[in-house]
Structure formats: C-alpha cells, structure tokens
C-alpha cells in the first residue's frame, strides 16, 4: 500500500484543519506557527509527489464500476504545485492580516481543509472522485467567504452556494449520461471512448452542460455573478486564494471532462465548441469592461478575474495545442498575479482602511514596496513584456489564429487585445495616482505605512513568480508539451 502515500497531502491538511477547529484554547502564535508548518510540509509532500507521477490508488468502490480512485498525472501535479505554493504564501500573509478579524482559528482551520480537498481534486483519477471533491470544496470554502459575518458577506456566501450547487447539478446531469454511454469514467488522455452512435445530440448537450456547470466556478457567463459578490467580501487572503486558485478548479474540471472524458475530437467543429468560444469571449469583454467601471478595488479585481479566467476558457475551447499551452500558462500566470494583487489590496486595506480606487492618491509614497509589487503585477496582467502575461497571451492568440475557425480566429485575438487594453485602463490608474499624486501633494503629512515583513515578503515572491513565469517560460512550455504529448 505504499501507493497510498500519495494521499498524505490530501489527508494531512484536512486532519490538521479539523484539529484546529476542535482546539478551543490555543495560543495565536502557536497556531500560526503550526499552520505555517503544515502548509510548508504540505508543499514538500506535493513536491515529493512529482516523483510519483503515474501512481494510482483505488480506495473502495461506491457501487460496481464506480471506484474512488486517485492517480497522479502531469496535469494534476501542475495544478497541485501552483495551489500549495500560493496557499503557503497567502497563508503567511494572513497571519498579520487576520489580526484585525475575529475567529482566526475558524478561518485557519477551514483554510487548511480546503487545501486538502483541493489536492484531492487534483489527484482525482476519475469523474466520480473528482465530483465528490468538487462538491466538498464548494462547502469547505463557504466559511471563508462568509468569514466576516456581516450581512453582506452572508448574502454573498449564499449566492456563492446557490450558484455553485446549481453549477454542480448542471455537471451532474451530464455525468449521468456519460456514465451510461461511456466505457469508463477514468480520466484517460484523449477521451475514454463514448458510444455516441445515435445519441450525438444528447451527448453534445451533456458536454455543453458540463462546460457551463464547471464554468460556474470559473466565472464564465452566464453563471458568473456569484464571483463578483463573493470574492470581495471575504478577507483579503481568502479572496486571494478564491480568485487565484479556487476558480481554477472550474478550469481543471473542464479540462478533465473535455480532454480526458469526451475527447477533443468529439466536440471539434460542433455547436458546443462555437457556444463555448462565444461564451468565453463574451465573458472576457464583459469582465474587463465591468472592472473598468468598478470603483471598489477588490470588486474591480474580482471582475478582472472573471475576464482573465475566460481567457483560459477561450484557449481551451479552441482545442488546439498552442491554445492549450497558452491556457495552462495563463493558469499559472493568473494564479500568481491575481493572488498578488488581492494581497496588495489587502495590505492597503489593512494599513489604511481605504477600499475605493479614488482614495488611493499618493499611496505609492506611503507603501512603496506594496505598490511597486502591485504595479509589476498589473503590468503582468496586462501582458506587457517582459512579464508572464505576454507569453500566455501570445500562445492563446497564436492558437486562435492557427485554428482557422472562421471569424473566431481573428475575433478572438482582437477581443483579447481589447480586453488587455481595458486591463491597462483599470489597473494602471491606481499605480499612477499612487506614485504621481500631483505637484500639490502634501509631502509633510507623509508617513511610512509599509506593512510588516510577513505581508511584504509573500507579495514580493508572488511578483517574482509572475514575472519569472514570463521570463523563463521555456521549461514550463516544454512541461506542458509533455501533457500534450499524452493526448
């Protein structure tokens, strides 16, 4: 049973989280140190799992042919690595940040549990297991959303829950039919082989439903509205992981369903692909525009997530290699960037209490490190070289152009580029008024508001990561090519 060791990273944080929930009297310092330790060990364990690619574990069978089954593959490892790294950094950031919130223990407990569930999601080897963890994640992340306990947060939390469950049922609908017509539900690169003869339309509708269903988590139109309500009300480190990581599970779900169950050939050239592409592009444009008009910083970032995740969705919908590479690069790039941006927003809120964009005049003079990171992350998100955003955008656009799908091969890149322009429009003004407050700015009132090192260091690492993904994208691209090679 040595194979079962791959499940330690799934079990460890869940157990640690549960223990944390039970321990009534716990010194804050000890709690923080142990949370950090768990996160660090978790990261190491996932790194160790790199060496165990291909290992599979069958725990038990729900009914005949429905095993709970895990397998470590290249794709899963990639997502898992991103998750543990970001979870660790946002976790360290939260120690200082959560000082001004109540119920730190509850927060940290659920924070750990979600991570365990997420790792389980990454290593899930078939659709049943995946679906189980997917639902579990929805529920365990719920306390993070409603943490502040304000009415606004609770309402947003309920909205999150309704949308997520609704989306999951969409997926479930498809799941039943896939179960009926597919040979198995084990994720197989290139598709499991579906006996579609005679039921093509039905199964295509199922595929579309599953895309829309997983698209809920990924914030894809039409069921994206929960995202912009739920992300801004959570505490900043929670928003960071919600926006940077949890939305990516929708992406993972879509990849698993389309690339590992149905197979790309099944939906290539069908109405499903067209609808998918249209929805993704619509979301890209809509998200950016709404972010451009939004006045609250965190909400602006949430809208930005809506748009950015649909970049990935668009890349996946094109069903070709370049676009797939672009999508996965964008997963990494956006994970680092959006997490960093939310943490920077959190640092601003923590230190100054300012939540509106207009209030941030001269902020760069007060907290230079934070705003420098914010600026570099913004540049990354816009996709200005030499940062990571350009690489993923380059591959996505190349994929679109090469796909040769009428209209979309030009429309796609144009919309992505217009959206990049809007991204510049909603992020750069913050930097500009932060660093260039105008010649009538009163420098005598200036005070240093740079937050503690536990806040700035994760931010700096995230910034370096975001830029590093761009500068040294070659090894990452060749890694993604190994995933592609299995299809």
């Amino acid at each position, binding site marked *: 049973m040595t194979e079962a060791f791959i499940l330690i990273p799934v079990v460890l944080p869940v157990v640690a989280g549960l223990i944390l929930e039970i321990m009534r009297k716990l010194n804050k310092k000890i709690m923080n140190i142990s949370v950090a330790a768990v996160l660090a060990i978790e990261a190491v364990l996932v790194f160790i799992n790199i060496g165990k690619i291909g290992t599979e574990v069958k725990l038990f069978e729900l009914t005949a042919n429905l095993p709970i089954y895990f397998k470590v593959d290249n794709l899963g490892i990639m997502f898992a690595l991103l998750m543990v790294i970001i979870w660790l950094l946002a976790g360290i950031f939260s120690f200082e940040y959560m000082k001004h919130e109540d119920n730190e223990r509850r927060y940290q407990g659920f924070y750990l549990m979600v991570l365990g569930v997420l790792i389980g999601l990454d290593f899930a080897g078939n659709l049943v297991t995946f679906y189980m963890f997917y639902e579990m994640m929805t529920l365990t992340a719920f306390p993070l959303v409603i943490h502040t306990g304000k009415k606004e947060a609770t309402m947003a939390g309920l909205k999150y829950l309704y949308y997520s469950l609704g989306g999951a049922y969409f997926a479930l609908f498809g799941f039943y039919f896939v179960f009926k017509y597919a040979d198995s539900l084990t994720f197989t690169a290139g598709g499991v082989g579906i006996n579609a003869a005679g039921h093509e339309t039905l199964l295509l509708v199922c595929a579309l439903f599953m895309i829309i269903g997983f698209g809920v988590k990924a914030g894809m*139109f*039409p*069921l*994206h*509205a929960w995202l*912009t309500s739920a992300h801004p009300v959570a505490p900043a480190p929670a928003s960071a992981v919600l926006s940077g990581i949890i939305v990516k599970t929708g992406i993972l779900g879509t990849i698993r369903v389309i690339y590992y169950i149905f197979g790309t050939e099944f939906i290539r050239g069908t109405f499903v692909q067209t609808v998918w592409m249209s929805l993704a592009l*619509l979301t890209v*444009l*809509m*998200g950016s*525009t*709404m972010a*451009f*008009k939004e006045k609250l910083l965190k909400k602006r970032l949430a809208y930005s997530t809506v748009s950015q995740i649909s970049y990935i969705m668009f890349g996946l919908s094109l069903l070709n290699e370049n676009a797939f590479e672009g999508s996965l690069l964008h997963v990494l790039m956006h994970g680092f960037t959006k997490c960093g941006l939310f943490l920077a927003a959190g640092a601003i809120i923590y230190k100054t209490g300012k939540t509106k964009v207009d209030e941030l005049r001269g902020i760069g003079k007060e907290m230079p490190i934070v705003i420098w990171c914010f600026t570099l992350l913004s*540049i990354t998100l*816009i*996709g*200005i*070289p*030499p*940062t*990571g955003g*350009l*690489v993923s*955008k*380059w*591959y996505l*656009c*190349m994929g679109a*152009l*090469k796909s040769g799908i009428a209209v979309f091969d030009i429309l796609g*890149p*144009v919309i992505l*580029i217009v959206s*990049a*322009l809007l991204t*510049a429009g909603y992020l*750069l003004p913050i930097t*500009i008024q932060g660093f*260039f*407050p*105008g*010649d009538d*700015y009163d420098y005598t009132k200036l005070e240093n508001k740079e937050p503690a090192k536990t806040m700035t260091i994760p931010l700096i690492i995230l910034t370096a990561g975001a830029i590093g993904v*761009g*500068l*040294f*994208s*070659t090894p990452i*691209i060749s890694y993604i090519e190994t995933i592609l090679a299995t299809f």
Partner: protein
Amino acid sequence: MNTHLLGFILIPIIMAFVVYAIGRKSKEIRNVMAVATTLAVFLASFYFFAGFFFGKMSPFELRLPDICGLKFHLMMDGFRALYITIASFMWLVCTAFAVEYNRIYHNRNRYYLFILWTLGATMGVFLSADLGTTFIFFEMASLTSYVWVAQQESKEALRAAETYLAVAVIGGLVMLMGLLMLNNITGTLEIDELRGVCEGLMGDKKLLAAGMCIFWGFAAKAGAFPVHIWLPKAHPVAPAPASALLSGMLTKVGVFGVLVVSSQIFFGDATWGKFVLIVGTITMFLGAFLAVLSTDMKRTLACSSVSQIGFILIGVSMQCLLGEENALAVRGTLLYMVNHSLFKLVLFLVAGVVFMNLHKLDFNIIKGFGRNKKILKYIYLCAALGIAGVPFFSGYVSKTLVHEAMVEYMNLSPASYNPGIKLVEWLFLISGGMTLAYMTKLYVVVFVEKNADEALQAKYDGMKPYMNMGNRILLAFSATIFVVLGVLPNWLFDRVADMGQSFMGLTEFEETVHYFSWENLQGSLTSIIFGVCIYFGVVRSVLRKKDGTYINPWPAKLDLEDSFYRPLLKVVAIILEIFSKIFDKLVDWTVILLRKSLLKESPIPFELTEGNALTYKVGSLLDGLKAMFTGEEEKYEGSFKHRLAMMYEKADEMSVIVTRSLSFGLIFFCLGLVFTIVYMLWFR
C-alpha cells in the same frame, strides 16, 4: 558567443538600481555615477562604431534562449553600431546636462532610475534582430519613458503623461496583434528573413493587415499623423533633457520599426510606398504648419519634430517605391534620422537653458532672453540652420538626398507619371521653407527682439551665469558637429551612410554625390525663398501684433486629442459598459424578476376562512375593478370575494353530494354485479 552585446542592455538597467540606491545617500555621487554609466555605454558603442566605420568589423549576432515565448536575438552591424552610438551620445549629453537642469525638480532619484532603464531598453530595440525582441524592448522603453513626461506632476504634465501612456499602450497592443498575424503568415519574425519570405506574398490582404498593425504601432511612437497627438503635449511638460531624448531618440525607435516594415516586409510594394508617402506628407506639412503658429518654445520644437518625422517617412516611402534603385532614398533617410536626432538634442537643450533660468517658455515672456548670450546664439544657430537645410550645414545633405530620391522617382516612371508626386515635391519644399520660417521666428524672439517689459529685459541681460561651463562646452561641441558634417559631407557623411545602408538592404553605392552642384543647391534655395516669404508674409504680418506680442490663431477647439480621441474613447466605453452591464446582470435580473413574479411569496399570509386562493385572488381583482368603475367599495357581504367564495363552497358541497351519490350508485352497481355473478355460478 557574443554575450557582451547583452551588456549594452543590462549595464544601464543594473546601474539604474545602483544609481538609485546611491541617490538616497548622496546626490553628488549619484550624478557622477549616472554620467559615468552613460559615458561607459557611449564609449563601448563608439568602439563598435569605429570598428564598422573603418571597416574593421563584420556583423555578428547573439542568440539567447527565448524570453516571453519570443525569440531573443540580438545583432551588431553598421546601422546598429551607428544608432547605439548616437543614442548613447544623446543620453550622455542629456544626463550631463540634467545635473544642472534638474535642480528645479523634486524626485530626481526617480528620474535617473527611469532614464537609465530606458537607455537599456532603447539599446535593446536598436540591437534587436527579431521583431519579437524588438517588441519586448520597445514596450519597455515606452513604459519607462512615461515617468519622464509625468516627472513634474503638474496637472498638464499628468494629463500629457496619460495621453502618452494611452498612445504607448494602445500602440503596443495594436503592434502585438500585427506581430501575431505576421508570425502566423510567415512563421518568422527574424528581420533578415522577412524580406525573403514576404516577397512571395506580395499583395496578400492578411499580410497587409498585419503590416498595418505593426506600422501604426511603431508610427505612434514615431509621431506620424494622426497618432502624433502625444508629441505636442508631452514635450512642453517634460524636463528639457527628457524632451530631447523623447524627440531625438524615442521617435527614432518608432522609425526603426517603420523602416523594418517598409524596407523588409513591403520592399518594393508600390501600394505600401504610396500609403507611407501620404502619411509622411500630411505629417510633414501639418507639423510644420503648427510649428509656425506656435507661441511656446518647446511646442514649436515638438511640432517641428512631427514635421521632421514626416520628411523621414517620405524618405522611407521612396525606398519602397524605388525598389532596387533606392540607394539615394536609403542614404537620405538614414542621414536624415541621424541629423534629426542630433538637432533635436541641441535645440531642446537650448530650450532647457531658457526654462532652467526663467521657468517659462511662452514667447511673449522669454522674448529677449538671449540677446547678449553669444555662445547660446551660436549653438542655436548651428542647429536651426541645420534643421532648416541651409547649405553647409548637415541638414542640407540629408534633405538633398531625400529630395533627389523624389526627383529620381519622377524621372524613373514617366509613363505612370502622377501629378500627385509633383504636389508632394512642392509641399516638401514649402515645408522646408516653413522649417526655416519657424526657426527664424524662434531666433528672432529669443535672441533679437527686446522684451516689452524693460525691467525684465534688464534682468535677462544681467543673468550670469545662465549655464555652467561644462554644459557650454558640451553644447557648443555638439553644435559644431553640424558645421563639420555640413561642410565635408563626402568625407564623413558618405561613409556613415556606407556603414548603415545594409540594414535597409542596400549593399553597394558607387557613385559620388556632388552635394554642392547647382542642381542640388536649387532645391535648397527654393526652400529658403519660401521660408523668407513665409516669415515676412505670415509670421511678421499676421502672427505678430503691432506691439510685438505673438499670437497663435489656431483655435484651441481644433485639437485632435480633445475633440476626437477622448470623446471617441468615452463613447466606446459607454457602449461597452451598457452591453456588459446587461450581460453581467442577466442572471441576477432574471432571478429577481422571477421572485417578483412567478415565484413571489404568497401575498395571503393568513388562513382563508372561506373559499380558496383562486377565488380570493379573482374576487379581489373583480372587486378592485368594480371599485375602479363605480368608485365605491362594496361591503363584505356583497363583494366578489365573498360571492365567489360562496359559489366555490356551494360547488364544493355539490361535488361532495355528487361524488357521494355516485359512489353509492357504484357500490350498488357492484353489489348487483356480485349477486349476478354468484347467481350465475351457483344456479347454473
């Protein structure tokens, strides 16, 4: 490996951090370090320049692993050596000049940081051998130079910087689109390979679209009409050394790209050549026209830059149109670029001297500043006469070459003779005249006329020292170059052209141009005559009032940016917003609508004493209707609510009776049936 090429890019970028760190401790050491860095870069560039100038070196390249998924490919050849030398020379002069000049500003550390970053990025652009690499450094240069414009942080400065940034970002993204399309069509972005690949694709619509995107991306930086809007706004508010670099060097970064597009991708494509020719002509004429009208020293120079870029674009278009015979055009364009860089360096720094002392640039205030300042007069005159293309100054050489190329094009194709080209030639000469006119206007204002306010004039005359010795020598030296180059064109300029021309695909040029032959002088003299006429006919009589104040009759409303681009962007944003809002709220609104209508919570929270919900609702509705028509409310007993409920109950009772009687009937029927069956079975 020629990794030392990377030094040109990395050393300034790394030194920027060092200089910034030092600046927090000591300002003096920082200034020295900044100048030393630029000097080092200049000397290194000059080494390569000399190598190629004397033919001792041959081109070499450096390929590195991809960055950002784009090829990282640098190259050193004659053209690149020439241009990095000029760039680093300008940076050296401007950094040295800034030591004295920048005392008037806050946040100087920031200024040095970004000046050095941009130097690294600019070097990267000029050394790049792959459009992907060019793009990376081009964007870096665009963004880092934003800080130069915003440096003052005054309202105008921030607004101009906003414009600059918008043009830079939009231009960059449009270019990205173009590069993507080009890469998709040709499969390569290598500058040296493009000509070969694109030759077979002549007339391809997709290639044209890609080329257009790339062209406008670069043209926005170069300042071509109608995307020149940032120049006249940004230059007056930026610190003078930064303006000099913006105008002299960053516009050339744009021209570099335009050159690649025109002389590699669309080499010999007549349609493309005509397109560039039209853009160039409008830019040239419009810029010169605005410069004549302007009453602000730096704005004049900025408009002049726009106009000069137009001249260069005409040269570029001639390269395209002349195809294999484009030797004159290639050499003319190249020298024009070199000249313009150096002229604008000197001219903007002269403006810097004025601003440094007076903090003003308005003609009516600075008038008379330079009356007794001989060295400044000399410096200005050398550059002004040079840019106006007066014989024996360096500008004359390049202008003559471009003009000759136009004449050659007209002679070359008499069959397809187009009257339009004659018009372009006349506009070329008139714009040359206008250049002379606005330069004279500036000269007369600053160095000849007396200020209307005598006390101010006395103060101006008594200003000493108005610039320090180092800057005097630096500027005077730079200005003297123009005379040397102008007097001995065959000795220096021809060799510079020889070393740079291969970049545009020209390998050999045997003939010797007799610059001072009568034919060549004619064009220049025509221009000068135009200039004199414009100066006396327009500037003195229309733009200058009787009392000596200058006016700008150009209506402020006629501003492309304020009355077209900004409103356009606003309208687009509003349309996008409405569109997005609808989609964003679609589901939320649907949910709300459903909850307000079909899924509404029951409006009758109490138990009904009589009837059911349907009778209650219909009854209420009828009651309401009746009340509306009759105007009085019925008592409960008479209301529809009650009557309907009664009817319902009656019907209910009825149905009970009916069902019961029916069931009785059924029971008896069944019993009867049973008896029948028993009887049949039993008594058979």
